[in-house]
Structure formats: C-alpha cells, structure tokens
C-alpha cells in the first residue's frame, strides 16, 4: 500500500454535507474491472455539464465552471476539506480510488460514513476528523486566501497552517502504523494464520452448521 508520511498541498473546499459515494463516483464508472483511471470521473455529475460514460473522451466534455474542482485557484489540490458525513451510501471503494487517482492524499471533515472511512485507509488516503468549529474556520480561511495550503504530518499527528499554527488530530494507532509504513493488511493477517486455523477448528466443532458445503 502507498505510504503516507507528510503531505503539503492546496486545500479544496467542498461545502456540502452528506456527500455520498454516488456523488463521488457515479455508478456507470463502477463497471470497470480495474482499480485505476477513476480520477477524471471524480464528482462527475457536478464537474461536467453532461452525462458521463465510461468510454467518453472527458477532455471534450463541457465543464461546470461553478463547481469548485474546476476553479483554477484549486488546481493541483491534494487536501479535500469537507462537511459532515462525508462518503455516505454505497460501499464502493471506487470512491477512494477516484479521490486518490485525482491526486487527493488527505480529507478533513467533522465526520465520515463508516465504510468509506475504512476504505480510505486501505488506499493510502488519510481521512482526518476535526471538530466542526475548526472545519468551519478552515472553510473561511481557504475562501479568503487563494493558494491556501496545509501540511499534514501523520507521524506527528499535526496539521500545520500557513500562519504557523498547528492543529492536532487523532488517528487509530494501528491504522497509522499501516499508513506510515505502507503495510499490506493481508500480509499482516496471514502472519496469524495459526490462530485463524485454531479458531476455525474450534468453531467447526461448536457450530458445524456453518460449515456445510454448497
């Protein structure tokens, strides 16, 4: 998995609560059997004025000039500033894939939907929870200062603002370790293969009705 240590980048504000995963990447792009190439269709229904299709030439599609992703001042952004319950809805991992493929490395929001939050960590994307008033203040600062960028330091659990002030954040210690070291979850779990086998054999005796074969 991609490592995450320190990231400095322009902050893009998405001022909308309950952004769902259909909003992040519409269903027609889920037909792909690949894991990459979703970035050009991130926020597709808001970013473009027409309906997107998996085989379309996106460079020829009309852009929605009012959508924040199309505003030049946020070009190259790698930090997404969002509102409550970001990533609600479907479990599609295509949502973090699209954010990652576009170039986002971290998200700042007051809260996330559980499945999306979990999926981010599997893809080297860091979702950070900050208090609502801190997020509100960040929206104001981003709006007031073109080119506003933040440095996110995962090992130190710090966000450094342009004025030098620091915001601290919480992160689950095991997830932090996996991100910092770029560890493969499956590899870690398979180190405990003996324990899984031991559990399985006990469980097969206790609840044999779960082990009937199709």
């Amino acid at each position, binding site marked *: 998995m991609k490592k995450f240590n320190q990231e400095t980048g322009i902050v893009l504000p998405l001022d909308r609560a309950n952004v769902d995963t259909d909003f992040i990447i519409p269903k027609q792009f889920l037909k792909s*059997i690949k894991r990459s190439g979703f970035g050009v269709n991130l926020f597709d229904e808001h970013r473009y004025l027409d309906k997107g299709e998996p085989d379309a030439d996106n460079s020829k599609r009309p852009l929605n000039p009012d959508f924040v992703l199309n505003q030049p001042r946020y070009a190259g952004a790698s930090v997404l500033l969002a509102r409550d319950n970001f990533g609600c809805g479907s479990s599609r991992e295509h949502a973090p894939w699209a954010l990652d493929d576009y170039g986002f490395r971290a998200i700042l929001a007051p809260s996330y939907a559980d499945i999306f939050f979990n999926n981010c960590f599997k893809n080297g994307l860091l979702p950070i929870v900050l208090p609502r008033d801190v997020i509100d203040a960040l929206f104001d600062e981003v709006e007031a200062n073109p080119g506003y960028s933040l440095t996110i330091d995962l090992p130190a659990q710090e966000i450094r603002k342009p004025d030098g002030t620091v915001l601290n954040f919480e992160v689950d210690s095991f997830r932090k370790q996996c991100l910092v070291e770029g560890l493969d979850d*499956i590899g870690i*779990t398979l180190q405990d293969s003996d324990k899984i086998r031991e559990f399985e054999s006990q469980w097969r005796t206790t609840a044999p009705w779960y082990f009937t074969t199709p």
Partner: protein
Amino acid sequence: MSGKTLYDKIWEAHLVQRREDGTSLIYIDRHLIHEVTSPQAFEGLRLAGRKPWRADANYATPDHNIPTTRDERAQGLEGIKDPVSKIQVSTLDDNCREFNIFELGMNDLRQGIVHVVGPEQGITLPGMTIVCGDSHTSTHGALGALAHGIGTSEVEHVLATQCLMQKKMKNMLVRVDGQLRTGVTAKDIVLAIIGRIGTAGGTGYTIEFGGEAIRNLSVEGRMTVCNMAIEAGARAGLVAVDQTTLDYIEGRPFAPKGAMWDEAAAAWSQLVSDEDAQWDAVVELDAADIEPQVTWGTSPEMVASVNGTIPDPSQEKDETKRQNIEQALKYMGLQGGTAIRDIKLDCVFIGSCTNSRIEDLREAAKVVAGKRKADSVELALVVPGSGLVKQQAEAEGLDKIFEAAGLEWREPGCSMCLAMNADQLGAGKHCASTSNRNFEGRQGFGGRTHLVSPAMAAAAAVHGHFVDVRDLG
C-alpha cells in the same frame, strides 16, 4: 457483570484475536460476492499468488449489471448490450470457476439480488458473520446474523484470510413499541427511524431493532428494516432470533437438516440481547404514530408523512440545514411548503434489495388489482428480487395483475435501484421507488427519486401523484 447485547455475543463468538488498541481479527462465516466490487479483489489474489482461504464460505451471483427484459435475458451473456457490463459479468463467472466458488449464474432460476438470494436459499443463518462488497449487506441482520458491507480491499482480505480486521462498534437499540396502523409497513418504520435519527445517526453503531412492532413483522419485513440501517449510518442492523426466524429458515436448501437442525435451532434460540444488556444509545418510537412515509429530498433523512408538506427552507434557522434543504429542493425541482400529495410522478419502480420479495409484490399487486396506471406515469417497472420470487409471483398470478394495470413485469436484478443496467430514470423525472437511496443521479442522471413502500408506490402508479394508501379502502 452486566448482560450482553446480541451484537456483543456474535462479536465475541467470532473473535480470533484482539490487539491492545482494540483492533480485532474477526472470523467471517459467509462471504457473498457480486460482479461489481469483486473483480479487483480476485485480481489482487492472482497478483499476490494467493488462494481463497476457504472457497466453500463464498457464494456469488451477478445482480447489478444484468438486463431485466425477457428477450435480453433469454440471450444469456449476449443479451447484455453494454460491452463493459458484459465483461464485468463474465469476469465474475471466470473468477468463480478459477477459484472454485459456488455461483448462481445469471440465468439460474435461483439467481437474484444477492441480499434476496442469501436468506431465500438458507445461505444466511442466525449467529453468522456475513460480509459482502455491498452496503446493503445489513439486510441479513434480519435473521440475527452480524452482516455488513465492505470495500473491495476487504473483499480480497476476506477471500485470502477468512477474517476481517476491525474495531468493535457501539450498541444502539431502536425500539418500536406498540402496533402499526393498517397500511403502514416495515418500509415506513425504517424511513421514520431515519427521519428521526438522521442519515448519520447510526454512524459508529450496530443497531438492534426491537419492540413489539418489529417482533410482529415477518422476516421479510425485518429485512426491509435492516436493509436500510446503512441509510441511518449503521453498517449493521440486527433483529433478535425468535420462532418467526426459525420458521422462516427451516427447510431452506442450504439450512441444516435433521438432527443438525435441532441442534442449530436450539443454539440460535439463545441469540437475543440479555434483559440487562448495556446500550450506548436507545431510540424509542411508537408504532401507532408512524404514517406512510415519502422522501422529498436527496437524502433518506429528508422524509415526511404522506399527509405532510415539504419543509420551507426559509423557516429553518440552522444555516447548514437550510442550505441542505435548498440544494435538495433545487435538484428535485420542488418548492418548500408543497403538500407531499401534490408531487406528481413520471415513473414507478417496485424492486431492489429493500422491497422485491414476495410479500412486497403481493402488497403492490393488491393496490393495483383491477385498476390502471395513470396516463401521466410513463414507465412503471416491477422487478422481482430473484428467479424464485418471480416464479412464486407468477404462480399467484401477480404478474398478470401488474400487466393488466399497465406495469411492466421484469426479470430479477438490481435494476433501477442504482441503474447500472439499462433501466434508468430520465433526467428531471420523478420516480416513486421502493428502493433505498434518493441520492442525486442514483436512479439515472438527473433523476428524482422518492422512497416509499411497495403499496405507496403502487398507489402512486394508479393516481399519478402520492396518495395515502390507507384512503384507498
């Protein structure tokens, strides 16, 4: 020591290992697979040279992409016109073959929406842990199983290790006391719950649904409720096991038989929360207060009674909420203060993992029997949840009732719930839908979804606007 919740019990029974920080390895009994969220996981296995830990714990069926017209279905894979969709479905077939995984293929009579098929086949059993790369896996909690959606990385993780790494959620009890009024259904219960606690109200929790009104629901009704736990933010919903649960499961193809059934049933009878269980949150609703529900916005929490009105954003004091309402109404092309009954419909969709089971179809058929859909309703689809639901409905003559009323009778699949196949809602069109999400573009680009029960959707088809199904007599 205080008692345990049903969630505590199932969690503890599946705990393989717990790290100091609470991150735990949980054993997974069943992994359900469909074509959309699995190809990258199988590819991951191949690239790492890994094999499924226990192939016989996996069950697959294609559902999201497959066409629902009889002609297309009769052609098998060739009937899938969209080449990208076709590759996804055939990739599932190939992966199941390569990794020796049981699959109900697209034209198997038992094929259907994965969350309809699991319980119907007895693949879903009480006390199990069940996961699937689909957020509506919460449906299976209706049978007292701990079931939730996962992303594709976790699909690969479960395939490779038969386990998931996670932290325990908190416990929420949603108790619906008393009795439902006539014409009010499981769908109305769950929409009312979401209206109360909000679309993020259950985030971080496993919700157990209890109380007299939940106990009185059939297992199919309980599935409707648990299905939408995720729309309240909870990955998993649960209903305790009772005789209704056991009666539903007994005799299903993959359920235990004979002496093993007796033993299993005795063990499953213990799958209830203790009287003195500790809850982190409790929400109480009175069933008698619940009226037929209709969503008016772009989040399932934007819901009102059929006799209510769309909220007026100018009356909302909280700025964020006002902004949310304004955004939603702009997308929906609706005005604050409009009566729900005055919302006109262009389309009706009866189907999805929320409401496509036989009882749902019976409810809808009862309403349209002997009537015609309104001329203003351009398209009305009835999509059964599985081949077996379809067969049963046809044996009861429901297909003929729908067709006589001008509704289209289709082949099983996810269809217009998320519109990955050709069944798509047109831009600007209003649809009364028995599905689970009214997000922007969910049923089709620019489409406008109103979530309702099957009976309410059927009534809307007949009248061309929402009506209180209880007034129809």
